[in-house]
């Protein structure tokens, strides 16, 4: 991936398995980096890890080989030490979830059933990307899987709870967005003033808690 990064892609496995392997590979690379400052901090994705390095200190071909070698090593259970659990209160539907009714119609369930199904799963934070603090949560129950909206919205409010493909997520900040908005939460996924601005970490668990009447 250019002259200063290696992109290691993984295959074989479902959405959750691939993301976990990517996280594990990133953690192995963190070990490499501890003793060798020619490496930058690896960025895990859905099924890959981007590994930055200094091309003036490390030959790019050697870098690619080193990453491949580490990728071939058996994955020891190196799950992160402190997985946190986040209970996220959500106001589903109505103005808070403008796409809830359309999603229900598209999947052949009542809106109430969509809410119950969405809230029934403890999701894993698979990786962060797209926006500061945006966690891709998985895996969404199969009945709720839909492609992204044909036309993205120019502006999705911060705190929007959304679904698309096999993921669900909460938008930390207002931005354009193509996911289906089914609810709204006041939990701040990103706050620059906090000592740790980003709330979620890969491996954390998220449960959505429906608030009040739909």
């Amino acid at each position, binding site marked *: *991936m*250019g*002259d*200063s*990064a290696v*992109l290691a*892609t993984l295959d074989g496995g479902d959405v959750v398995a*691939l993301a976990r392997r990517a996280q594990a590979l*990133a953690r192995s690379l963190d070990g490499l980096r501890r003793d060798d400052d020619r490496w*930058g*901090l*690896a*960025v*895990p*994705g*859905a*099924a*890959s*890890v*981007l590994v*930055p390095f200094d*091309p*003036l200190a490390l*030959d*790019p*071909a050697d870098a690619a080989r080193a990453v491949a070698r580490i990728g071939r090593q058996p994955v020891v259970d190196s799950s992160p030490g402190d997985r946190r659990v986040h209970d996220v209160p959500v106001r589903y539907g109505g103005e808070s979830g403008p796409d809830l009714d359309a999603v229900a119609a598209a999947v052949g369930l009542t809106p109430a059933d969509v809410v119950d199904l969405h809230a029934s799963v403890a999701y894993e934070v698979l*990786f*962060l*990307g*797209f*926006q*500061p*603090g*945006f*966690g*891709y949560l998985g895996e969404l129950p199969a009945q709720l899987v839909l492609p992204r909206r044909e036309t993205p919205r120019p502006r999705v409010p911060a705190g929007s709870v959304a679904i698309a493909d096999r993921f669900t997520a909460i938008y*930390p*900040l207002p*931005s354009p967005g193509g996911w289906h908005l089914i609810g709204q939460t006041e939990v701040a996924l*990103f706050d*620059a003033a906090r000592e740790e*601005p*980003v709330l979620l970490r*890969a491996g954390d668990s998220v449960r959505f808690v429906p608030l009040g009447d739909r």
Partner: protein
Amino acid sequence: MSGPVAIEVLEVVDGGVEATIQDAGRPNAARLGVPPGGACDPMGLAIANVLVGNACDRPALEVFLGGTALRALVELTLGVGGGDLGLVRGTGERVEPGEAISVTAGDALRFTGGPDARAYLAVPGGFVGERVLGSVSTLVAAGFGGHGGRVLAGGDRLAAPVPALLPEPLPWPTTGGPSRRHEVRILRGPHARPAGGSLEALTGGAWRVASADRMALRLDGPPIDTGTVELPSHGVTFGTIQLPADGRPIVLLADHQTTGGYPVIAVAISADRSVLAQLRPGDDVTFRPVSLADAVAALRALREALAAGERAVREAAAWDDLWRSAQG
């Protein structure tokens, strides 16, 4: 914010198109979904900073296109780096990138517009700003960093901890050589179709910059078909060239989203980030494939030029020992 006393040094008279405080960014924040950010033209930032005795990565003002106007509030030396944005003093005298100038209270500076896109203005000690995740760089999309997480506007005042008037500031030694302003050297990307097609279409002719901001350049030209629509989200870098569904390439810059799912057909070489940073909307650009060895050699040459320039300025400048030791 506790810390050293800061002195207001510049007042913004007109924010122009987009002026923000930027330093060298957040290279290790991508795992949080936070872009690396920082100056789009890292050489421009470095030169402006070295000219006023700073380390290369101190917070400076990044100015995008013309229109930004400032007034000095105190006696001060300023370093100018990056591209030619038609910077003039109140007297009408032009200030070229690579110059250090001294101003007194009330002096005016205006970026009137020029052939390039981004310029950097540095002050001794660097500008003071909101520090988030180890950097003062502004991420406007998320509203944090720099001056209140936003672009500068008329009435804003910029502060520095140690404003100084430097005796006999010296210009950056010019290296000469032809300008390759509108040619970007690239390497094949991980998703370029091996049997030809997308890379050849990218390098076969000129593209027009349809729009530019700190996140990306969006190019216009004959749409390229990759045959793939989307891939699992993966980490991307400054200089990544993506192909969205409409076939018109997107070139990522400093505030790029940390992950993307569009096919990556090419990646600009690191040494040409400054070239990307200087492209304006409406400019034409061509892409030329080079080898990995060429890419590394170009980066090495750039770093050596920066180091040589830095040595020349620091050795020749007759600055106070007090000032030097204040840099820490």
